[in-house]
């Protein structure tokens, strides 16, 4: 049975300096509010894990929370580059950022292996690319039946995974629907987990396309209405596409970025 907590308490209890932290959500249901709370609480030295480090990771990186990034695609979807990510990689600002770079298929399978209690994943991937030259966590394994060589990747086991979902019931069973990405796997792969939800309800009426995560498989649930903004929560909010476009200008300059964080993250619970 998951513990019901406030966002601030949940982050304080579950996310520690130096942790391996995954915030997942594939365009939809990105746990922005939780990311902002991590910035507010000043976490340092995090290894951030995420298939698509987009604006939320740009913010965490620019705010100096991260020392390492495990990822497969780092961009502002539909807009362009992540300037804080680039600045960290190209100029070590505000701190050097070590990269562990994979493909989507690889990251997804690494979470699957983690969720399955296996030490590694097998897939057809990476072959012929330059990724294995630079990423130490890409190896091969031979099929014991056909002899064929396949790609092997180590399981992802974050210290903590944070996701956002539509709702939860009073014992912390979590329900999400729409595009649910790799969230189930990311939660089950982690040692601890925090789910932010739009609301608590007495009963989780079944919804087509739902993924339900039982409360006993989750560490804590926090009510954070609008917790995915500027990402969206199907059935609750729409994506703030303007914000994603605006982020390009906000994040391009270090001072503009710092001013934005000071005003919208450090001084408020949830950004307007």
């Amino acid at each position, binding site marked *: 049975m998951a513990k019901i907590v406030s966002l601030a308490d949940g982050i304080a209890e579950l996310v520690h300096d130096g942790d391996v932290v995954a915030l997942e959500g594939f365009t939809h249901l990105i746990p922005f509010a939780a990311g902002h709370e991590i910035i507010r609480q000043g976490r340092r030295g995090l290894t951030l894990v995420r298939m698509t480090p987009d604006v939320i990771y740009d913010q965490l990186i620019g705010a100096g929370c991260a020392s390492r990034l495990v990822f497969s695609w780092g961009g502002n979807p539909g807009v362009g580059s992540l300037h804080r990510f680039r600045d960290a990689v190209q100029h070590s600002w505000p701190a050097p950022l070590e990269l562990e770079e994979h493909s989507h298929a690889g990251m997804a399978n690494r979470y699957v292996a983690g969720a399955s209690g296996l030490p590694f994943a097998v897939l057809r991937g990476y072959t012929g690319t330059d990724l294995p030259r630079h990423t130490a966590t890409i190896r091969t394994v031979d099929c014991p039946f056909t002899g064929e060589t396949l790609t092997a990747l180590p399981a992802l086991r974050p210290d903590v995974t944070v996701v956002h979902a539509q709702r939860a019931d009073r014992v912390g069973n979590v329900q999400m629907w729409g595009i649910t990405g790799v969230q189930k796997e990311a939660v089950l792969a982690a040692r601890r987990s925090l789910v932010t939800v739009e609301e608590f309800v007495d009963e989780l009426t079944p919804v087509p*396309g739902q993924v339900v995560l039982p409360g006993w498989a989750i560490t804590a649930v926090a009510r954070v209405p609008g917790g995915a903004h500027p990402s969206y929560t199907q059935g609750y909010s729409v994506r703030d596409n303007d914000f994603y476009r605006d982020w390009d200008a906000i994040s391009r300059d270090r001072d503009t970025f710092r001013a934005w964080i000071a005003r919208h993250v450090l001084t408020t619970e949830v950004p307007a």
Partner: protein
Amino acid sequence: MSAADWSADEMMTVAAARQLRDGTVCFVGIGLPSTAANLARVTHAPGLVLVYESGCLGAKPDRLPLSIGDGILADTADAVVSVPEVFNYWLQPGRIDVGFLGAAQLDRHGNINTTVIGGSYADPAVRLPGAGGAPEIAASCGEVVVIVRQSRRTFTGRVDFVTSVGYGTGPGDRARLGLRGGGPRTVITDLGVLEPDPATGELTLTRLHPGVTVEQARAATGWPLAVADGLTTNEPPTPDELAALRALQATLKATP
């Protein structure tokens, strides 16, 4: 229609849409590929199946999605599956006929770079977004269509980083690597179309868009561009294609 009536980007998108046969299954990225695939669906290929890596199989959006995880994709899909499932059950076994890819750099053998340009991997001149789904799309789809604006910076003799494999260093490389898909059969640019020479695997100019010259294409290519014997010129966009494309693009502006 004359060239004054449409832009090079419109011609590129129309040419990409024409490439898609009705009834095929297409793995679509956001941006030009998504526009081209949706254009095909509202024109000659109503039975085109669009698969988005966010897990939406058979999405039928009535407006252009703004992101790969746009809610309109889930709302209109035949099935929404997890991201691991879309890669493992649908892409990896070769169930996708056509994969669309963009490129920051593309070399003469169709290898693609979307990772780093210049400097070294550890200290690059430009850090790009990285691989995303591309390496496995390039490996496993029946064929790959690359859509990219042509310039000497992009069309380079050798990519700085192989993010997604085309024909490697030449014919036989895909088979040697065990890649099961056919590789990049078509590269569609704002100037024309390149296709691999069957003997060498080298991208060769096979079609020009109306009003474009071979010299322009050569000037925008960072290697000595071979031109196919049977070089042809694409039909310009039809009024119907153009109207459909512009109607689709208007939906982008209408979405909050």
